[in-house]
């Protein structure tokens, strides 16, 4: 979808939105705390823009006008500034999106191994099934997992290699909110180079159930590797 003012006209009579007034802009307390913690991490508070938008997207499902306004209020920046940033990045949604995201990599290495058919099959199956509007299936650029091509990132969990035959089970796992294709998770995989390990090591455990979707945020994710705890 094009940004506002591109194909569809934008209301140029309206003055640009100003930095929201904290007195009249309610911001959920947890979101406020998270954004403020991010701002404190950096010498310049603007650096917290991406983590803040990611946190807001997690809460609202997408970078909605309401989400943008809340971030703008806490960060003391204009909504326009945040919209300009949000529209630049692929993982920030600028229109309503489902609670679950499936990014199917369709870049060169995956497409050489059948990713385009996988994407079409996933999109069609998600649209047909129950709650299809809650599953956001997207063709994505290289996700950096060409060793399990063709692959997908399901609510941030990498799975592959996948064929169209894996799609029903994949969607079933997503809808159930449980662990996604545990036997196909990248996290389990040992390095390909047989000279790397001097002895036989067990397979790594798969990741537990998928998060709430959307980009990264500490609260979104349960410990993702054994022993991995909270950030602070």
């Amino acid at each position: 979808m094009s940004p506002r003012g591109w194909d569809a006209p934008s209301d140029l009579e309206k003055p640009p939105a100003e930095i929201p007034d904290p007195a009249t802009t309610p911001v959920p307390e947890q979101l406020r705390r998270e954004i403020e913690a991010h701002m404190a991490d950096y010498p310049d508070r603007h650096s917290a823009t991406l983590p803040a938008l990611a946190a807001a997207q997690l809460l609202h499902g997408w970078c909605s006008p309401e989400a943008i306004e809340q971030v703008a209020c806490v960060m003391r920046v204009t909504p326009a500034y945040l919209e300009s940033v949000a529209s630049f990045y692929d993982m920030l949604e600028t229109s309503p999106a489902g609670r679950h995201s499936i990014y199917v990599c369709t870049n060169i290495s995956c497409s050489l191994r059948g990713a385009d058919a996988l994407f079409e099959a996933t999109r069609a199956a998600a649209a047909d099934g129950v709650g299809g509007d809650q599953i956001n299936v997207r063709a994505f650029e290289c996700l950096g997992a060409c060793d399990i091509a063709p692959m997908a990132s399901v609510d941030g969990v990498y799975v592959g290699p996948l064929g169209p035959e894996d799609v029903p089970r994949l969607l079933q796992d997503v809808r159930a909110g449980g662990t996604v294709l545990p036997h196909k998770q990248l996290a389990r995989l040992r390095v390909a180079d047989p000279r790397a390990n001097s002895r036989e090591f067990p397979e790594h455990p798969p990741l537990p159930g998928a998060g709430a979707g959307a980009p990264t945020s500490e609260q979104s994710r349960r410990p993702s590797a054994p022993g991995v705890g909270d950030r602070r």
Partner: protein
Amino acid sequence: MAAPPAGVGGNLILLLADIDEPGLFTREVYERRGGYESLRKALASTPEEVLAQLEASNLRGRGGAGFAMGKKVSFLPKGSMDKYLVCNADESEPGTFKDRELMQKNPHMLLEGIVIASYAAGAERAFIYIRGEYALQADVLDAALVEARAAGYVGADILGSGHTLSLIVHRGAGAYICGEETGLLDSLEGKRGNPRLKPPFPANQGLYQGPTLINNVETLATVPAIIRMGGEEYARLGVETSTGTKVVSVSGHVQRPGNYEVELGTSSREIIYGLAGGPPPEREVKCWFPGGSSSPVLTAAELDLPYDFDSMAKAGSMLGSGAIIVVDDSTPILDVALKVAKFYRHESCGKCTPCREGTNWTVEMLERVECGEATPMDLDIMASVQEHIIGNCLCVLGDAMAMPIGSMIAKFRTEFEQHIEQARARREAA
């Protein structure tokens, strides 16, 4: 899948050594294996001595450009201003997945390298800019960072040395251009990831306008090994102008895709066939990208080239990020060209006209070839569009499309002409 024959690729493993050992991502296991000893050793000497070791190692950057790491550190101005170190973990070059494996399984090795490099550079603030898609790896790094802080490896007065470093894991949100160092800096400052005009180079004016050292994950993860071995000893590995070992991501039409660590200068055939198993049975290599999808393609006749920076450059391509993508003879070259061009069109930030328009028109012209509207003359126009992109933009994203597309037109012109001919015939028949 059968294992590769013994002896292939040499036996020297530095970065991937026992990488699947259970619990390696914890400080306990990492330390048991001698982890953070290099940091102690480095902090016991002066920053100048550490820098001398890095320079002696001749380590060249593993992110794409292959610039000497020690030299990069030495470019930072001396004196007591705010300096920054940024670890580029935005691994987005198609075909590249080496940093992912290193960060996920051995995060402390990267943290140790960052702390040592920050000591040599005099930087007191560091950031790991990791692509947002790498959620698991970012969480692993954050957890490792908590452990490292608790042990006094990161923070104020590290191990009583007087060196202070604050370190933050910063998650991106999905943009290839943020792997370009100045685009990354803008993104880290909370803006759209548009590249900046250079000069000034980041070593002088980078993050928050301060002197900034930017290095790739693998480069920094190699630093502890250099300090352990000594720079000169490390420089004995590999070949003269490409020292050391390199983790190579092999993908596409090979039987054992994955990460392999080789000494630079190993034959490309040994990597593609010996280690990664080569294309499926009955298939031949048609072309291969030696350094991610941005590198000009090489053909089957060039498989015996040594895999190092200068040999790849001499062959008209580049080692890039060390990602070999193999395409076998079952795939039309047009499909490969379209995939690559569409990717760069999508990722162009739009700031510079040659890149924004050039990537778009290249895709449109390739689509004309596909649907039978093109003539052989269009191939010349397409080639000239590529030439007009190269060197005419703030960053090399446009070049990154122009180089491989130009090489495909040059090396597979006959096949393109056949495509045009056949597609026209089909179109006229319809």
